[in-house]
């Protein structure tokens, strides 16, 4: 039996793998909607904002409970999105700059708090630094359980509210005209993103969580013109990336999971960019070349016809 296969025999490793795949799946789904709503960077901001939230939750409680982290990160994410909204509305600063400002402030604060915790001598703190880049191997059974349940819950919510989310992403003005509570749905989607981020950072890390939200969605967009297919495909790409990242990381090399997962999802993206039918580069090149050949042939045949006619006339 090859060495790399051993990971599948260890039940704990199998659990972790499953958890990371489900995480990739749900972040791909949520990411599809945020990508289509042109909020790609929002996931990044939320992930970075989660760090101080998690740190404060740990400092207040002294325990590494994923539930408390969720509350802390959600609160921080809420403040961050409020901050971004406030800056965009009340100053002349555009949203991209507002995102950049808020994102770095929260991450800076989070890093300061994290360093403070590490030097505080609290024996329970070991592992918190894993939040930066993620380490799937450090997950314990309970973490995986929470990851799996929330992932399935998120996928379930997106299935139930698929029609509403689709309308909200495509044409929020029309949705409001139909009487859907757009502000509420907006907040709900933001909340789902916070949940994915918080559940995911332990495995993938804060810095790279955004990539897991957006890259699978962008890749999926290349393969289809149907939203339903795109969402499922993004989920599958996410799951695939999560699997690859976890697998290599857990397979003794001790590399951090987050970067590996991101590299894997980028590989999927590059394949999509190059070879997706219709939208991929190769496909576009072929279409263009066929069109050009057909046009030159057409030109040649009419020219030939003209020539023939002239010869006949002579």
């Amino acid at each position, binding site marked *: 039996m090859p060495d790399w296969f051993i990971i599948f025999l260890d039940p704990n490793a199998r659990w972790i793998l499953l958890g990371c795949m489900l995480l990739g799946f749900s972040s791909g789904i949520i990411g599809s909607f945020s990508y289509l709503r042109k909020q790609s960077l929002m996931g990044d901001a939320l992930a970075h904002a989660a760090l101080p939230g998690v740190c404060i939750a740990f400092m207040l409680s002294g325990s590494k409970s994923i539930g408390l982290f969720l509350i802390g990160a959600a609160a921080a994410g809420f403040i961050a999105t409020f901050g971004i909204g406030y800056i965009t509305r009340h100053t002349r600063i555009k949203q991209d700059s507002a995102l950049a400002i808020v994102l770095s402030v929260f991450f800076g604060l989070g890093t300061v708090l994290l360093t403070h915790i590490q030097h505080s001598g609290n024996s329970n703190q070991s592992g918190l630094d894993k939040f930066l880049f993620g380490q799937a191997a450090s997950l314990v059974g309970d973490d995986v359980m929470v990851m799996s349940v929330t992932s399935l819950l998120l996928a379930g919510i997106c299935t139930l509210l698929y029609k509403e989310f689709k309308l909200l992403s*495509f*044409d929020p003005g029309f949705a409001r005209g*139909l009487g859907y509570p757009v502000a509420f749905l907006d907040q709900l989607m933001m909340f789902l993103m916070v949940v994915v981020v918080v559940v995911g950072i332990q495995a993938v890390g804060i810095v790279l969580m955004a990539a897991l939200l957006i890259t699978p969605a962008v890749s999926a967009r290349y393969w289809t013109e149907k939203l339903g297919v795109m969402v499922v495909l993004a989920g599958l790409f996410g799951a695939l990336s999560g699997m690859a990242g976890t697998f290599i990381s857990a397979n003794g090399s001790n590399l951090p999971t987050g970067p590996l997962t991101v590299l894997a999802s980028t590989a999927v993206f590059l394949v999509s960019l190059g070879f997706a039918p219709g939208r991929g580069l190769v496909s576009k090149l072929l279409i263009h070349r066929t069109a050009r050949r057909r046009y030159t042939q057409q030109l040649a045949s009419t020219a030939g016809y003209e020539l023939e006619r002239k010869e006949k006339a002579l």
Partner: protein
Amino acid sequence: MNHSPLEIRGLSAAYQKKPVLRDISFTAPEGSLIGIIGPNGAGKSTLIKAVLGLIPRLSGDVTIYGKPYAQQRKIIGYVPQRESIDWDFPTSALDVVMMGRYGHLGWFRRPGGQERRMAMECLAKVGMSDYAGRQISQLSGGQQQRVFLARALAQDASLYFMDEPFVGVDAATEKAIITLLNELKQQGKTVLVVHHDLNTVKEYFDWVVLLNVQLVASGSVDSTFTADNLQRTYGGRLAILERDAHSELINQT
């Protein structure tokens, strides 16, 4: 008691702090095509958005068939400006039209065969049946506008609001749209259209609302769409306009 499809009393609305609509009041007659006319920045789109509750009102009352808007959503159809959405969205023309049924479906329920049939009928009415499965970015501007119109038809409303449906469409599409609007009128429906081209106002509409932040005038085209009123609406900014309006009036008499 017979209520008007749309009654607006003392409506004011603002973006940020500057009011863009001040104290608008009028009552729209049922079964008519109504043009909302005014210069850029006069608040034409804002008027529609304020009525539909898309932007908050500062003051004023809007009733639709005698009831507040919130109770009448299902009998209102809306065609937003074409530029307001991302046409590269992964969805087909048929899908967009089916969105017109979402309000009737309510929460959680997915559109099914019935919605699909209805959407196909609406696409047929705007002459777009052949493009049902097309991704929406691969439609021309005029075709996109027709899809938007079909979506409004799918709403099966009694009162329609259309924000510049004639912008960026070719002559054929414009004719197709106006034919459709006349059909709606014949069915007793009321349609409000934000419109730019003063030359076609008399031909297209029965009733006009002349707007420039405040209401300049409203009433039947014959009595209201006069050179004098236009001059007040556009504030004398367009000399050519004045001449055109005069010559048209002279031609008519």
